[in-house]
């Protein structure tokens, strides 16, 4: 009988203690996973009895309702419709459950959480902007065409209005309403404000100010800024959530958004903006002072910290420094440093792109590195390098080395005089900067050094799967310490790869009646030749027993029990080691458990590894045995 999804979702919702009690909802292959604010408000008994709910339990701060493959997603969709919630990914649910993370970690994580969802926009724009702006440097006539002006408009949209994207994404991260977040972002780049990018064209006295505040506020937008937008939206989300709690429901709908927007706007322009612009001025002054420190040391430091300023969105202000240099000395010595830093991020990102095996990582890393070579590093930094951290550090080192080199070089100006190494324009770095530099061979060498250093360091210190790397050295360096690849169990929903090296035996031959009789499900036994259990598929760890001798996994509705030895529960974990924990996502062949066969045998038990599909009867076309 087909389940009435809507009814099922409504019934579930009615037993959860109201909308406010549900923090987030997600689903996996079989379960609806909810994060509940107050577990005492929910009616567990009633929930269990809802038609369609096959079982429920509560773990890791999540309430998990077992609904079943193919059904859970439909119930989930209805559940979202019923509750008016927006879809949370499984990660978000985990995040909500793990909100006890230390503050400094949360702060470090925030820019990444905000930027990763908007990466497609940044990648598209970044790549296009790099290409479109590079063409006129080689073919100046193109710069005059309508095509150029059109493509330029398309390309820079996401960057010109970046605060809007950041604000929307930040509102999601901070738990505010995303549409109010969008309003805050739009407000900060409102056309009535002076564009932050052209504000340099105004003399100090020409910039209009508001005197409605305690002190004059310059009417300048926040184009190209990131931190003030993050702070404004954080403030907005905090105000909004507070108001939702305290404003009576009857007037909540119109009072809360109004008050939220007005308060946030006021504080953004009076406090966040001015404080930030002071901070920015310090950064600018600091950066300018830094690069004059002798023997290239200052330049090296700047080359190293440059990508950090990109993470914070501060690099958009460097145009001011560059423009100042050109007007005073005619040579923009900042540009080679920026190029060193940017091209180093390109090198690091390229190393990741070439080294990684994950198609997903590769597909982000490759275009991102291309974009970085054209001087647009955000995709590479946020999408790859900063996320994995090691490539980012490698990029910093590459940037430092390149900058040091740049500070020792000289160039020649139009009249043939020897001048400092630098560019004659500003706003370009990387490959598009070639026509603008006063010493092209050295510039090419500079890029080669920066990218090369970053590439080589990344190649050697970065590995795709860090935890795997940590456990690898402890494994005996025997020929067999590789995960097996033969398939041992197959069904309509997928297959299981042999999880342990050794001889595969029929279920009936397992030296224990419970397993052999199939009471616990269908599967095979393995007489192990090596004490390691590998993941049989890409899936999720649903539990690891306290005694570390058994683990359960799930994928696509297949519930799997891997039990090491017979009666080994009595060993209380002695001789066993677990590398994963409940809720972890694992890849086929990843190490799950290690066990000491000698100890198991010494304790008088069989070390036979039992692999069972515990819900075999619910699955179709189950077939056991090696193939």
């Amino acid at each position, binding site marked *: 009988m087909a389940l009435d999804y809507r009814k099922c979702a409504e019934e579930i919702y009615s037993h959860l203690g109201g909308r406010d009690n549900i923090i987030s909802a997600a689903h996996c292959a079989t379960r609806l996973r909810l994060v509940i604010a107050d577990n005492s408000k929910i009616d567990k008994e009633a929930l269990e009895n809802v038609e369609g709910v096959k*079982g429920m339990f509560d773990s890791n701060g999540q309430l998990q309702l077992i609904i079943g493959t193919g059904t859970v997603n439909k119930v989930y969709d209805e559940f979202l419709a019923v509750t008016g919630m927006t879809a949370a990914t499984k990660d978000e649910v985990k995040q909500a459950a793990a909100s006890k993370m230390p503050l400094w970690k949360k702060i470090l994580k925030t820019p990444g959480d905000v930027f990763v969802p908007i990466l497609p926009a940044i990648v598209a724009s970044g790549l296009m902007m790099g290409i479109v702006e590079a063409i006129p440097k080689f073919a100046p006539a193109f710069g005059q065409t309508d095509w150029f002006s059109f493509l330029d408009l398309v390309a820079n949209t996401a960057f010109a209005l970046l605060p809007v994207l950041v604000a929307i994404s930040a509102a999601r991260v901070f738990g505010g309403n995303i549409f109010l977040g969008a309003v805050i972002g739009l407000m900060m780049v409102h056309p009535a404000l002076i564009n932050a990018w052209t504000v340099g064209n105004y003399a100090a006295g020409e910039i209009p100010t508001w005197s409605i505040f305690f002190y004059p506020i310059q009417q300048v937008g926040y184009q190209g800024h990131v931190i003030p937008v993050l702070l404004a939206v954080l403030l907005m989300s905090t105000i909004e959530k507070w108001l939702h709690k305290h404003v009576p429901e009857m007037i909540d709908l119109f009072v809360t958004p109004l008050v939220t927007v007005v308060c946030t706007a006021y504080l953004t322009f009076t406090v966040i903006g001015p404080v930030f612009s002071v901070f920015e001025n310090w950064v600018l002054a600091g950066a300018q002072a830094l690069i004059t420190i002798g023997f290239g040391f200052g330049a090296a430091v700047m080359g190293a910290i440059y990508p950090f300023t990109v993470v914070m969105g501060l690099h958009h202000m460097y145009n001011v420094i560059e423009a100042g240099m050109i007007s005073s000395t005619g040579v923009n010595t900042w540009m080679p440093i920026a190029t060193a830093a940017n091209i180093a991020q390109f090198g690091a990102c390229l190393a990741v792109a070439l080294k990684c095996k994950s198609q997903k990582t590769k597909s982000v890393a490759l275009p991102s590195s291309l974009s970085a070579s054209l001087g647009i590093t955000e995709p590479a930094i946020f999408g790859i390098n900063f996320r994995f951290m090691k490539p980012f550090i490698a990029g910093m080192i590459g940037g430092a080395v390149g900058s040091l080199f740049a500070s020792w070089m000289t160039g020649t100006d139009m009249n043939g005089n020897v001048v400092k190494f630098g560019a004659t324009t500003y706003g370009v770095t990387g490959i598009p900067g070639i026509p603008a530099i006063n010493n092209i061979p050295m510039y090419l060498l500079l890029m080669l050094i920066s990218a090369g250093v970053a590439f080589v360091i990344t190649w050697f210190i970065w590995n795709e799967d860090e935890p795997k790397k940590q456990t690898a050295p402890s494994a005996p360096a025997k020929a067999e310490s590789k995960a097996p690849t033969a398939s041992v169990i197959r069904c309509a929903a997928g297959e299981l790869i042999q999880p342990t090296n050794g001889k595969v035996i029929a279920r009936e031959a397992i030296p224990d009646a419970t397993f052999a009789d199939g*009471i*616990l*499900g269908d599967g095979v036994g393995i007489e192990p030749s090596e004490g390691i259990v590998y993941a049989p598929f890409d899936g999720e760890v649903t539990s690891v*027993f306290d005694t570390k001798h*058994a683990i359960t996994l799930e994928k696509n509705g297949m*519930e799997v029990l891997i*039990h090491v030895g017979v009666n080994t*529960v009595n060993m209380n974990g002695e001789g066993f080691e677990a590398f994963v924990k409940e809720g972890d996502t694992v890849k086929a062949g990843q190490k799950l458990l290690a066990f000491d066969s000698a100890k198991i045998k010494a304790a008088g038990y069989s070390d036979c590894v039992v692999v069972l599909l*515990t819900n075999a009867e619910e699955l179709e076309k189950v077939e056991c045995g090696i193939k």
Partner: protein
Amino acid sequence: MKSFEYTITDPVGIHARPAGVLVKEVKGFAGSTVTIQKGEKSVNALKLMALMQMGIKQGDTVTVSVEGGDEEAVCTALESFFKANL
């Protein structure tokens, strides 16, 4: 709904084998829904994985509830089953 409380005496608790035996027993009562509850968590006794994931140990007290079918008879049968096996 009928229910009873039981304190586990099996030294390994409701681990693989005991859980398997229990599920097999419960399957015999097709008309009833049997739920095992420990503290905040509760599971359908037909769900082997969920049952094992409860991590019920010796000395833990669980509540066994029966709903539907001949509640009285199933409850009595299960109670003696628990005493004999768990």
